[in-house]
């Protein structure tokens, strides 16, 4: 008995070892394909934009001209539009989102908080083209008839609100983007706030602070890295949004100070002009824009990730 068992054992071990090796290889191959896909992506972006990169060099990023006739292409109007609309989006969604996140994590009862958070996260699931559809038929007329004129009559002395009110434009696109990004701010900030150790709150309350004071002066600062991470995450999303933006931004590659005027964004121009690029340089310029956008979102997403990781590490530290 003992001898047969001793003879069987190495055989079984070998079989399991081969099985494991095969399994390991299979899963590794699939995982490596992710690396491959990304490498191919970067390569294709780099390679297909070569014509344009060699032609314009770094000047691409600061040139305002987008002229398919003379084949002069510059990214600045689109960078401007992308940044401005995202900035407007962040300016609106951060106070809104942070406030809601604070309410949901600190001030609301747990079951209400979960239910409401679930509903808010559904907002993030709504496709971009549907936001565009709604914005086009509801927000744009609203902005054109009421929003724009109201801003002009109250704040019209600012260069931000000069010029005719078309309904479409930077501001409208920014507002749509803010609705699309607010669920991310709420979701991630709420998690960051919930991760703050109970002792911190209890200590502050024990010292006589009101709930709000505890939240604002103790909990929020403790979670600020995670909150900042959520802002960066939302920013990255806003920068890359295509459909909702192209439907309400006006598609005019101009740089103007007024938020009421029409503009363009990187994603919108690629969506609008890619299948119509008549020359190789035109196409390459659009791909180069894609490369710029790609680079932007990597940097910002990377920063967001670091902040969120730092927060969860911090939250789990015991004093």
């Amino acid at each position, binding site marked *: 008995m003992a001898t047969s068992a001793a003879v069987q054992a190495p055989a079984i071990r070998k079989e399991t070892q081969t099985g494991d090796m095969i399994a390991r290889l299979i899963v590794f191959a699939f995982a490596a394909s992710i690396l491959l896909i990304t490498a191919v992506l970067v390569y294709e972006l780099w390679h297909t934009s070569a014509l344009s990169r060699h032609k314009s060099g770094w000047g691409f990023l600061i040139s305002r001209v987008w002229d398919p006739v003379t084949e002069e292409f510059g990214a600045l109007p689109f960078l401007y539009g992308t940044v401005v609309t995202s900035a407007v989006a962040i300016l609106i969604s951060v106070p809104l989102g942070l406030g809601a996140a604070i309410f949901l994590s600190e001030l609301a009862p747990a079951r209400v908080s979960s239910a409401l958070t679930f509903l808010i996260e559904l907002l993030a699931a709504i496709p971009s083209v549907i936001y565009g559809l709604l914005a086009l038929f509801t927000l744009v007329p609203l902005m054109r008839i009421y929003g724009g004129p109201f801003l002009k009559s109250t704040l019209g002395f600012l260069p931000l609100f000069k010029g005719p009110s078309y309904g479409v434009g930077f501001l409208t696109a920014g507002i749509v983007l803010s609705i699309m990004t607010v669920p991310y701010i709420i979701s991630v900030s709420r998690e960051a706030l919930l991760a703050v150790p109970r002792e911190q709150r209890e200590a502050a309350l024990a010292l006589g602070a009101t709930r709000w004071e505890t939240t604002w002066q103790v909990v929020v600062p403790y979670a600020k890295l995670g909150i900042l991470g959520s802002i960066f995450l939302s920013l990255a999303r806003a920068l890359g949004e295509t459909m909702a933006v192209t439907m309400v931004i006006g*598609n005019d590659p101009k740089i103007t100070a007024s938020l009421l005027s029409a503009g363009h964004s990187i994603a919108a121009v690629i969506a*609008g002009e890619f*299948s*119509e690029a008549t020359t190789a340089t035109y196409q390459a310029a659009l791909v180069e824009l894609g490369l710029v956008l790609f680079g932007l979102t990597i940097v910002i997403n990377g920063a967001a990730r670091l902040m969120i990781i730092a927060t969860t590490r911090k939250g789990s530290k015991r004093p």
Partner: protein
Amino acid sequence: MVKTNMKRISLALAGLLMGSATVAMAQSINAAGATFPAVIYQKWFDEYHKLHPAIQVNYQSIGSGGGIAQLTAETVDFGASDMPMTPDQMSKLKVPALHFPTVLGGVVPTYNLPGVTQELRFTPETLAGIFLGEITKWNDPKLAKDNPGVKFPSDDIVVVHRGEGSGTTFVWTDYLSKISPDWKAKVGANTSVNWPVGLGGRGNEGVAGLVKQTPGSIGYVELIYAVQTKMAYGYVKNPAGTFLKADLATVTDAAAGAAKNMPEDFRVSITNAPGKNAYPISSFTWMLVPTHIADAAKAKAIREFLTWMLADGQKFAAGLSYAPLPKEVVAKEIAQIKKIQ
């Protein structure tokens, strides 16, 4: 258990193969290009599909620029454009392409001015001025001069143009370049230009959409789009001094000269045509078909469609506010069909 499963699987596979075979027997032809003639093209392809159920011509109206680009990339079987291809563009084609004029159309200045019921009159100077961004308000004296009796509001003029590469843009800017040296120098004529002012709409449909939803706006669209969306469009003064609206007669008149002197390759511009009754912003529009198509069945289907288009197809034109091709042009085109191999 395994045996019945195998049976089920093989039956399913067979069914799938048969299904895809039936689909494969259908001739699927892909085309893309101009939105200018898209209304009649879609009508044609729909009607032709009813006559020949096996043939599906999928036409995507993405703009003339797109038609030329996709033809060059060989992702479509034929393209469509309101701008004849330039020698430079033609040199980039791997397989040379033939231009087939299909219909005549007119590009009209369509506007949205609530409160103004009279039909507006535009001169070359006012149109150039508006699109150059020099005439910025509706109550500009230059507009009032041509429109006595019209009470213009003091609103800003919102210019709407095409956002993407468009043959309609080419026709419009070609016209503006001919009548305004300023325009020619500053902007020029092409499917995609550096617009001094304005919002960008997507396709003729998009421009019509923007103008319809934006009071105080003015854009340029092919006649049928203004008609179908029930929007106002203005009179334009032609070189002979007559104010004309685009319609069957005035657009046909614009092509009269070209019909008689049609070049071999059918590439002409008829904007600003002479003639008392010629609408100045008219144009032919072309299907761009490669001279050599690898799939013989596809080539035959395309040849047959073109033959139908030049005969029965032309009957649909007037009903959709396009003008049918002059007879001389049709005759020459029938000869050109033979060149598609």
